């Protein structure tokens, strides 16, 4: 059945792409985003502490999670005539080389306003052991035809 605004329901789920994290994928994200923070490059630097935090080794960019969630949302939205309008995320756990992560979404609610129609979606990213590494909320618009 084709998904439309009308037949979407709270609890409906969206599965995003699995993503294998490696030193190479992190380095590629450095080149693509121009974010060369040593958090993502320098193992020696990452042996130190960051105020109250010690990561123990390089970590993936938090915004790589963001990009994967956004990819899931747009790939879901385009064929349904919807538009990705907002994404808010928080990073819960660091992601490291060797992890495999996957974003998912669950429809939370729908709302109709004066000139359009909106869907709120809870999003999260889990790693290969099922731990949440990122959580957030998205808003998609289903414009009136």
């Amino acid at each position, binding site marked *: 059945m084709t998904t439309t605004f009308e037949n979407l329901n709270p609890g409906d789920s969206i599965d995003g792409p699995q993503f294998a994290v490696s030193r190479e994928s992190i380095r590629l994200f450095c080149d693509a*985003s121009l*974010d060369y923070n*040593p958090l993502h490059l320098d193992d020696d630097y990452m042996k130190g502490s960051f105020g109250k935090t010690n990561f123990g080794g390089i970590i993936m*960019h938090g915004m790589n999670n963001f990009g994967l969630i956004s*990819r899931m949302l747009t790939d879901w939205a385009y064929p349904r005539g919807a538009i990705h309008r907002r994404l808010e995320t928080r990073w819960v756990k660091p992601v490291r080389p060797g992890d495999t992560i996957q974003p998912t979404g669950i429809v939370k609610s729908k709302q109709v306003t004066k000139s359009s129609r909106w869907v709120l979606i809870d999003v999260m990213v889990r790693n290969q052991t099922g731990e949440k590494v990122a959580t*957030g909320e998205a808003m998609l618009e289903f414009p009136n035809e």
Partner: protein
Amino acid sequence: MAKVSPEGAEAFETDFWKDANLRKAWDDIVPGEPRKTLAYTLTKEAIELYCKSVGEDHPIYFDEAYAKTTRYGGLIAPPSIHILLMFSCTPADDWMRSPGTVNAGQSWSYNLPARPGDVIRLEARALDKFIKRERLFVVHDNVFFNQRNEVICSGRGWTIRPV
């Protein structure tokens, strides 16, 4: 570490330790004070590289003939292209590059897609700074515009500053 030179852009310094002493620390950041920004021409190649890094494969980012048939009327960049724009529209002494800057979360609203060839500018500032559980936070606030002064997207991020 070498500099990289995206097409149409000046060489980008990839060594974030260089000029680190020029960047504002938490104590020096004044909420409300504008950050220095740079205009940046977004290229098809930069979009394609970003897409590759997160596995974006939708034809609306690559296939001009397909993209013309959509509501967008041509190629667009993924909404999350602001991840690249944040660094391409700021100079080397911007405090977002301080080594050890930890991203705690971000929220973004999308108005119009960015497109290849757009000349993009950024209005940005620190919006707030605070201490929580002994960590030094700064909230940054950003709006990207295209060459027609239309808002592409706006967003805010929570960063933990290096001590």
